[in-house]
């Protein structure tokens, strides 16, 4: 079964929707935060797929370029979210 753009977009869309489900359905903040890499990973996969199978010769690298940027954005967002998830003061680590 040859891989074309359609399976790539389907997998990317499924990963994006799984991330959206995680962010929307989970109640705890760390669990919802874990959905963010799925969201951005799905978007990045679609970008790479379009870059790989694009018929236009004008801009073949841009998809991969923005997939790299999305990977960095994922890490920054999770780092910021993990810092913001820190609970209030007065309770030591491990007991909150």
């Amino acid at each position, binding site marked *: *079964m040859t*891989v*074309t*753009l*359609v*399976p790539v*977009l*389907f*997998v990317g*869309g*499924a*990963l*994006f*929707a*799984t991330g*959206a*489900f*995680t*962010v929307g*359905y*989970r*109640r*705890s*903040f*760390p*669990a919802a935060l*874990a959905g963010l*890499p*799925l969201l951005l*990973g799905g978007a*990045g*996969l679609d970008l*790479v797929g379009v870059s*790989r*199978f694009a*018929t*236009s*010769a004008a801009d*073949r*690298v*841009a998809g*991969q*370029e923005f*997939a790299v940027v999305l*990977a*960095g954005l*994922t*890490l920054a*967002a*999770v*780092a*910021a979210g*993990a*810092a913001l*998830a*820190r609970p209030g*003061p007065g309770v030591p*680590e491990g*007991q*909150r």
Partner: protein
Amino acid sequence: MDALHSALFYAFAALTLAGGLAVALLAGERRLLSLLAVGVGLAGLYADLSAGFAAAAALVAYVACAALLLRTLRAWPALEAAEREPRGVLQQAGGLLAGAIFLVLAYAAYRGDFGTGFRAPGEINTSAIGRLLVGRDALALEALAGAFLAAITAAAVTARVRRVR
């Protein structure tokens, strides 16, 4: 794509989607192991699509994300307590919205009129990506770097304010 690349693509796709479902449904450290599996699967998909640099970047980012979330989970396990409460209307609406998003994206993927051309990946490499990032798309990269800096500064200030109080 030849048969080996196709088989690898579907294997990595299965790993990625199974890991994604596990991230959505499991709790605790098993969720973070699943996130690692998603990172490995996604890096494999990128590599299979001839995007080696993006694969390396994604793998590093996912391992770091899992480590950060593991640190948060171990330091403040009570943050997970909210999972034991029943889902409210907002959570159920969020789940339904995610299902609707999937249906729309799947419909767009199968009904879209995409070109079927194929180009050999000879000119796509790390240096080409680097030239674009610091050349044509330098302004976008600077804007993104500013957003990163603002996010990290806000996170650091928030953590510091909470510690001082």
